[in-house]
């Protein structure tokens, strides 16, 4: 559902409270690119953004551009809005995705009937007025 379809009575979707660690992630999404931190010490990619590697605690990292391709690890279909901002959004799916580069991320999927275990999905980018959201869609066969 596009943001313009939200009734005027609904509050706008929350805007990410970006910080120093996460700013490059949100900036990349704005350009429709997916970039995550990759640890210089152990080379593992991490999400969400944080100042230290959650695997080896090293601080040094670079921002690596990812393919956006992955497979569904788990998913839910949200039928009840827990915040008024999402009253016009339900139902929607939330999927956790294991990306090819070995990192698990979470995003929405618009089609609530398509999520399935191990389904191949690819990143899509939804522009909101102040930020861009990472969503997933089923990969074309």
């Amino acid at each position, binding site marked *: 559902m596009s943001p313009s379809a939200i009734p005027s009575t609904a509050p706008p979707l929350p805007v990410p409270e970006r910080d120093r660690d*996460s700013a490059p992630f949100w900036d990349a999404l704005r350009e429709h690119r997916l970039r995550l931190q990759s640890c210089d010490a152990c080379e593992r990619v991490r*999400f*969400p953004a944080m100042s230290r590697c959650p695997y080896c605690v090293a601080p040094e990292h670079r921002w690596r551009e990812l393919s956006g391709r992955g497979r569904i690890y*788990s998913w*839910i279909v949200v039928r009840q809005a827990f*915040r008024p901002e999402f009253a016009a959004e339900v139902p*929607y799916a939330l999927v956790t995705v294991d990306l090819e580069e070995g990192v698990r991320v*979470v*995003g929405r999927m618009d089609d609530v009937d398509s999520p399935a275990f191990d389904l191949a999905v690819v990143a899509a980018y939804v522009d909101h007025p102040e930020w861009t959201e990472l969503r997933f869609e089923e990969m074309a066969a």
Partner: protein
Amino acid sequence: MDPFAGRTAIAGAGMTELTRRSGRSVLSLAREAALAACSAAGLEPTAVDGVVQYSMYDDSVQAEALGAVIGARDLSYVMDFAQGGQSAAHMVAHAAMAVACGFAKNVLVFRAMNGRSGVRIGQRAAVGGGTEFRYPLGFVAYPQVAAMWARRYMIETGATELDFGAIAIAQRRWAERNPRAVLREPLTEEGYLASRPVAEPFRLPDCTTEVDGAAAVLVTSVERARDLALTPAVISSAAWATHGFDLDMGSSLRYDDYLRNFSGHLAGPLWKRAGLGPEDVDYAEVYDCFTGALALNMEGLGLCAPGTAGTFAREGHTSPGGKLPTNTHGGLLAEGYVHGMNTVTEAVWQMQGLGGERQVPKNDVAVVSSGAYLSGSAIVLTKDR
């Protein structure tokens, strides 16, 4: 000899009624439950010298404030613990440690909340470092986080939604026998399937029912408990575990084994300290904010095999008359959400023979757990021998 195991006991338990709108202050609820626990034990409230409580989103009242309104003017041990469902057994353990180490003699542990008419935890956006990435997606509330775990559990074990349903149905059978429970009408498989989806795979009966109310227990030494009014529920063991904690309690993207929550990580030390095993348990009061959490907790504690909690419930083992009566008050699912403190009070009442229409036939050993996913606690209670 273990410095903790078997040295303290819960001497009494008390609760308020559970409502959807108490019309009272949280402190008033806390006071009623605390006085009920003292009265059950036969202890003058002025003899209380320690108070421990837990809260979330600042929804409770300070331990010291409770002391003030029950006439316990001199306290030598207090704690206000800002965590949620992980806390109840851990707070009992803290009170027990204070008593065992001589910091206090009679410690009240309470949870009080206007959880329905005031702060509704299940609808609050949890706080913490990972929320920046979840809120804008509409991944905001704890039931959604729990449902994500539940789906993964289904993928890995082959369990179906009806396995979660079997858990809700079994616990409702206990609630039918519990006048305090807020959901007492029988639940059938058809009724479960027809109920409103919340965050699939979870429907409404998979989720706890938020209420206003309070629960409290009195912890003292085994020796003092023997001189009080009721059978002591001896605290034979306690354990806490945090595993895979990330930025906040809803951040579990990097969790390494979705079939094993905190309870699988504390079971070893818990049973070892007690000198008992899951096979010794007569009845279990196990944290169940969601059916999926109950499954992980039962399996993690070793009460049933991994992936089988739904089958175990469907076969009647956890129901009235079953071999392992579980959540004999109806659980948080059906009695109501006093954040796991009512899970403790029920365990105590059953051991003291105060279970009424739902009294279990054998009540020598009980396990009580608190928590759902990344962290939690548990205690083992045994009848004084």
